[in-house]
C-alpha cells in the first residue's frame, strides 16, 4: 500500500512562505520610509 503514497508526492502539498529576502526587504523598507507632514502637505521619503 505504501507504494501508492510515495513520500515525494506529499511534499508537493507543503505550504509556502515568502522568502527571507522579501521579508528583509520589507523590514528595511519600513525602517527607511519616513512620512513628514507640513502645512497640510504629506511628504514621503526613503532614507538609506
Amino acid at each position, binding site marked *: 500500500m505504501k507504494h501508492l503514497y510515495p513520500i515525494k508526492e506529499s511534499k508537493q502539498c507543503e*505550504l*509556502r512562505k515568502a522568502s527571507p529576502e*522579501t*521579508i528583509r*526587504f*520589507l523590514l528595511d523598507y519600513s525602517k527607511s*520610509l519616513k*512620512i513628514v507632514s507640513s502645512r497640510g502637505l504629506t511628504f514621503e521619503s526613503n532614507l538609506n
Partner: protein
Amino acid sequence: MELHVDDASLVKNYLNGDEKALECLIARHNQRIFNFIYSKVFDTEITEDLFQETFIKVIRTLKLGKYNEEGKFLPWVMRIAHNLVMDHYRKNNRMPRYEGSEQFHVFAILEDDGVNAEKRLIRDQIESDLGVLVDRLPGEQREVVRMRMYQNMSFKEIAERTGVSINTALGRMRYALINLRKFIEENQIVLTD
C-alpha cells in the same frame, strides 16, 4: 510571547515606532497571505512580487495614518492582496506573456509572413505552368485573361479596349476559365502550393 499579542496591539505598537511589531505581523500572516496569492497565480516568483507589493502598501497606509480597521488586520491585508492579484491579471490581459516549454514553444506555430525560398520556387512554377496553359487558349479568351489577371483591368476597361460589350468580355472570361480547368484536368496538373 509576542505571538499572544493580538494584531490590533501590534499595529498600534508599530504606529508608535516599534519596527519589531511589523516583523511579528509579517511572520504571523506570512504563510496565509503567501498561499492565498499563490492559489490565484500559481507562480512562486509572481507570488513573491505580489506579496512584497501587498506589504509595501500595508506599510505605507499604516505610516500615512490611513488605517482605520482596528481588529481586522488580516482581512484588510487579504483584500489588498486580492486587489493586487486582480491588477496583475488585468495587466496581463493587456500584455499577454507567452513562455515556451519542452513540450510546446510559441515559435513552433508562429511563422514568418514573408514568402520563403521554397514557397517562392513553387509559386514561380505555378505561374509558369499557368502561363503555358493561358497561351493555349483561343486568342479572344487569352486576351481577356491577360488583361484581367495580369494587367488587373476591370471588365468595363476590357470591353472598351477590345470593342465588345461587358457581357461578351465576361462570357469570354467564363469560357477561358472552363477551358483552363479542362486543360488542368486533362494534363493532371497540380496548381497549389
